[in-house]
């Protein structure tokens, strides 16, 4: 199980983002996990809970966008649906190697946190 280690890394990344934008307590973190990232979302959430337990960010929520891979056959020129649980990169119709795009994401997308900083209204930052 490597999800625990990944949860620790995600937490570090989030803490760094908070530090770069002030200080405060994590509320919600949204991440992208690709279906080819070899990371199990439920185990990752379990790991996240363990990482934040009894700490200043206890209760922070981890939201996971599960991302599908896009597959296209350069020979047939068509998008090919990936059958459930299959990692084959060969066109089921003509046998040509498929072009695979995405599906390997393991990215932090959004970090929301609560801070005592002024001004009092909510702010939004984009990098």
């Amino acid at each position, binding site marked *: 199980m490597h999800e625990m280690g990944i949860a620790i890394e995600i937490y570090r990344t989030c803490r760094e*983002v908070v530090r770069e934008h002030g200080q405060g307590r994590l509320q919600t973190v949204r991440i992208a996990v690709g279906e080819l990232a070899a990371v199990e979302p439920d185990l990752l959430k379990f790991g996240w809970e363990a990482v934040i337990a009894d700490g200043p960010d206890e209760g922070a929520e981890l939201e996971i966008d599960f991302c599908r891979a896009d597959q296209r056959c350069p020979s047939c020129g068509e998008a090919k649906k990936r059958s459930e649980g299959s*990692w084959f990169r060969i066109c089921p119709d003509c046998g040509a*190697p498929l072009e695979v795009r995405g599906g390997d994401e393991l990215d932090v997308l959004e*970090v929301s946190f609560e801070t005592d900083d002024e001004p009092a209204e909510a702010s939004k930052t984009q990098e």
Partner: protein
Amino acid sequence: MKKLVTIRRKALAASEEQADKLRERFADSGTLVFNLISSPGSGKTTLLETTIGRMAEVYKMAVIEGDVATERDADRIRAMGVPAHQVLTSGACHLDARQIETALEATDLLPADILFIENVGNLICPTTYDLGEDFKIALLSVTEGDDKPIKYPAIFSRADITVITKSDLLPYVPFDLDTVMAHISSLNPTGVILVVSSTTGEGIDLWCDLIASRFEAKRRS
């Protein structure tokens, strides 16, 4: 006050940054680096012993061994006259870039022509971690069964080279070599597949030629 920061940052950013630093370091020392990944007992250390026996006179080699416990593998490599460092993970199921950095700091493994990193025996977790290597190599021994590539597809779809080991045992085990090779090619149409036996020497020439050609290619680049 609530703040929302929208970013897109690699979740493993710190670890990947470390891997990039390692890559620079390996580029500076002109070292070709292989990350060997397989289940326990598939013959990683034995293949390294065989490789050292064939190539260590021509190339300066070094090995980093990853295991949960014991110096056994590093001792086997040192017995062959090649410097080796054992990383003990105390239970962790994979090596990460920081452990490689620490190992390099603690030793004089570099400069070397070729560095083999033998990962912790595990088909799953080491797949995710970049160690700054040039190539990932997956090993699969014929005694493990021929369904492993489709059951553990991530490593076989990412490995640049898959080495099927213990081919001398093929007559004694139910292992459909053609099907396995077809599965691996379907997972990874551009990967190289080799069939070797450290016991009989089958395929070892091809394996050594492949390493040598990858080394020459890196030196030229």
